[in-house]
């Protein structure tokens, strides 16, 4: 089972931000240097690690908490 910490590390790596910036209520767009392209790369990385994301959830992805609640396989 994928842990919250594994997800945090992946998100931090793909969005190129320090781990400590990722709190549940962190708005991804507000992160320093945020780039919408990085978000697409993050979606691919999450998919490859086994985080399942329906298209409707992808459409409304906004905060770190939105990622943490996704189903994991």
């Amino acid at each position: 089972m994928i842990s919250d910490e594994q997800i945090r590390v992946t998100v931090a790596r793909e969005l190129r931000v320090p781990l400590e910036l990722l709190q549940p209520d962190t708005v991804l767009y507000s992160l320093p240097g945020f780039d919408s392209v990085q978000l697409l790369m993050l979606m691919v990385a999450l998919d490859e690690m086994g985080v399942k994301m329906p298209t409707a959830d992808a459409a409304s992805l906004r905060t770190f908490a939105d990622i943490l609640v996704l189903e994991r396989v």
Partner: protein
Amino acid sequence: MPRAALTAIHHCLPARRLTEAELEARFGAKNVQSIAKLSGIRERRIVEPGMTAADLAYSAADRLLTTRNIPRESIDLLIVTTQTGDYQIPGTSYVLHERLRLSKNCAAYDLNQGCAAYPYALALAQGLFATGIAHRALVLNTDALSGVIHPQDRTLVTLHGDGAVASLLDTATGDEGLLGFHFGTDSSGWRYLCMPASGARQPRNESTRQEIADETGVVRTAEHFQMNGQAIFHFAIHQVPEVVRAAMEKFHVTIADLDLVILHQANRFMIEQIYKKLGVPPEKQFFYLENVGNLSGAATPATLSEAVRQGKVKPGALVLLAAFGVGLSWGVALLRVGSDGLPLIAASTDLSLTDLPNSP
């Protein structure tokens, strides 16, 4: 049962180029380079003021018919797909029917379809061939989205170009032709690609002209085309491989049987992800977006047309076309090229305003 076969194809692009340098001045180098790295798009072709999608379609069709010496009265079916027609009423097919001097015995259809337009148009034509209604068809896929994208919407301006493709279909005489189709729709996502104030549901007024910036700094109004990029990207890399696999199973073919797999040219990273999931080897892949952009409903046939121009479509080739987008919709078509191959129509694909003496 009569079957339609593709016997000629030609595409037309506006001569005006929208370069990275122009976009970097508008959006900043970092934003533009970041998007370009993912999209693989370095330059787009967009219409000049006064030029429309119908002009591009006219030019593509006129060159095809003239070069191939096709008698205009021999065409008994015209299908035009566009989301950026000349008028709300009438359909663009009627405008083009007149400009192309087609016969009164030629049926004219408009198909409001986006990026999946080509398989849909081919299937409609195939149905009319099969029922004996049509014997020679002209299919025109054209879009000029640059006119409905807000100039400050960097997520769309950087990706989209304008273009048109003319395809000539004749009755198959051998094993060539349109061999199979597979379609589907996930209408739960229609809002992800939408121009809200563009019809009867939301009439245009002062409020629909208000510019709104979202959290990422993208600016647009309700009168402009809008895309939820995250949703579309997710849809494409998850749904499209499944759809193509289902289509191949239905057609009883595998990747090994195919000579070319052509996908809608939304962005290079997305296409690569789909090719990777399907296991399509590099020699069966083809890209046509780096210097033209995403041509929306014209993208898939333009890619086929360019592959023909580059000699990548051999006589007898088995080609799979997969297109997806607005709706959300998808379509897959399987076609076999005739033993004589597809002819090169014209060296130039460019269109300038001065080339259009006949625009109404």
